[in-house]
């Protein structure tokens, strides 16, 4: 029973770590514009994040060191510093987008303009980071995030043409919007499923909870169940958008449209559940991105980090945490539209993907760290193929963004 409970909690954390503002926006846009034509991208993203999170978790359990810690040993002080600067910027912009998502979810629930919610969201995120116990915080937001299942339920409630949905998924076409726009959305959706902060967070959490080799099976299990559940929730976001928004010709430029299908199906109750789910996933992701930004810096410089020691003993770590949240709030207070910010965030994350994933693959093959727990041949083949996909997404992201004017 205890074991079952522990497994459930691990899965909850994984689900919470998967869906965020990037998924809400990218999945909503993909469904509204191209129907189910991007379902395969989501599937590929889930396979990629499972494979690489498993490696990162194994590295953390065997060596007791988190990802960024080892990135510096492998890349050298200089390259790793360049990597740190780039990863930090991407993560802080992601944090800003998540805070924007929290503010939009609160606006959806209350009608009060989102800009007023931005400072509130920033303070609340920082307070939770300062005070709340780590496992509790992961589980609460993971559990509340499961409310997204309302989108899957809505599919059954609405007059869904399942055969047409299935056909759209297996035979993708560009819906007359041009293949440039199709691939632009594909890259954004892929980047949203394999956000680097998920790996930083996952491996740092493993070190913080002192995983050992004995915890490997549990860690692997939560990854292999939790991330696919997250992927299923994202898929149901695409599907509801395909069923409701696409025929009506609606595009997604705020979270209201993403929630529209459940409002259509369940009215005010649907809106409340959707707003709760949006709040939970974006707030949870804001916590994770904030921590990830501080983890990366602390692990590069070797500072004391984590929530097991008092903030006084990890003053540099907590300073970076505080500054990151502050930067996120300031970025939003420039009145940049949070959904537009999310679109740009996804493109720069796509560019930065190899900075995280290449070193993980290298370390996961290093016997001096992992002994005989290095990658097997099958996982290496999968990892290499996925790395080619990641590199391709990274290379085409900016040309696609410019060529299609952000997917127009």
């Amino acid at each position: 029973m205890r074991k079952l409970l522990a497994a459930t909690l691990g899965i909850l954390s994984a689900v919470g770590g998967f869906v965020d503002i990037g998924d809400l926006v990218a999945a909503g846009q993909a469904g509204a514009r191209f129907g189910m034509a991007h379902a395969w991208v989501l599937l590929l993203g889930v396979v990629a994040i499972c494979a690489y999170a498993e490696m990162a978790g194994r590295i953390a359990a065997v060596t007791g060191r988190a990802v960024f810690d080892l990135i510096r040993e492998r890349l050298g002080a200089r390259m790793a510093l360049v990597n740190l600067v780039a990863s930090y910027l991407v993560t802080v912009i992601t944090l800003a987008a998540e805070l924007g998502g929290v503010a939009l979810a609160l606006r959806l629930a209350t009608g009060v303009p989102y800009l007023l919610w931005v400072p509130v969201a920033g303070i609340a995120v920082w307070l939770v980071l300062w005070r709340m116990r780590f496992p509790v915080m992961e589980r609460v937001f993971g559990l509340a995030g499961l409310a997204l299942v309302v989108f899957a339920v809505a599919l059954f409630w609405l007059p869904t043409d399942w055969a047409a949905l299935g056909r759209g998924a297996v035979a993708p076409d560009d819906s007359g919007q041009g293949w440039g726009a199709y691939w632009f959305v594909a890259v954004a959706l892929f980047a949203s499923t394999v956000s680097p902060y998920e790996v930083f967070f996952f491996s740092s959490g493993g070190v913080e909870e002192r995983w050992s080799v004995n915890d490997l099976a549990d860690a692997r299990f939560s990854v292999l169940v939790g991330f696919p559940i997250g992927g299923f929730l994202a898929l149901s976001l695409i599907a509801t958008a395909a069923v409701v928004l696409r025929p009506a010709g609606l595009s997604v430029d705020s979270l209201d449209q993403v929630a529209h299908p459940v409002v259509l199906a369940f009215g005010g109750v649907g809106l409340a559940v959707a707003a709760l789910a949006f709040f939970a996933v974006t707030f949870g992701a804001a916590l994770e991105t904030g921590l990830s930004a501080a983890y990366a810096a602390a692990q590069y410089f070797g500072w004391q980090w984590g929530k097991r020691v008092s903030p006084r003993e990890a003053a540099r770590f907590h300073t970076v945490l505080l500054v990151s949240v502050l930067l996120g709030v300031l970025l939003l207070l420039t009145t940049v539209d949070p959904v537009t910010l999310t679109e740009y965030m996804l493109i720069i994350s796509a560019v930065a993907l190899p900075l995280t994933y290449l070193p993980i693959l290298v370390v996961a093959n290093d016997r001096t760290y992992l002994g005989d727990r290095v990658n097997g041949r099958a996982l290496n083949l999968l990892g290499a193929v996925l790395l080619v996909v990641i590199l391709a997404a990274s290379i085409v992201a900016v040309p696609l963004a410019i060529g299609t004017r952000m997917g127009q």
Partner: protein
Amino acid sequence: MRIQVSQELLDRQLVDRDGRLIGKVDDVEFGFDADGVPYLRSLLSGPGVLGQRVGGRLGRMLVLTAERFVTDRPMAPLRIPYALVMRVDSAVWLRVSADELPTSPVEEWLRRNLIGRIPGADRASG
């Protein structure tokens, strides 16, 4: 004991007796014994030496940022005699406790002037 400095020491995490994180091995220092044979004298840690090793504009920026927090410049690194190293695996483990080593000046400054002033700074949240 044979050890490859660049492979097994540089950029590795320094950990004290109790598992607390001290910093990274940012550089090393060699000395000469009575017969003129070089030996590994100490491990160096701190943004000053790290910035020098990184070099270029990025390295200079790192040093300048760190130096804003200290009064005596150039910044002295934390110098750990190699004899204090207990073992080297995925981290460099020391025989001493962090309390016996000087605290990083940047950490000290932020603790005194920022983080330590926020209510609840003394409690770990787990």
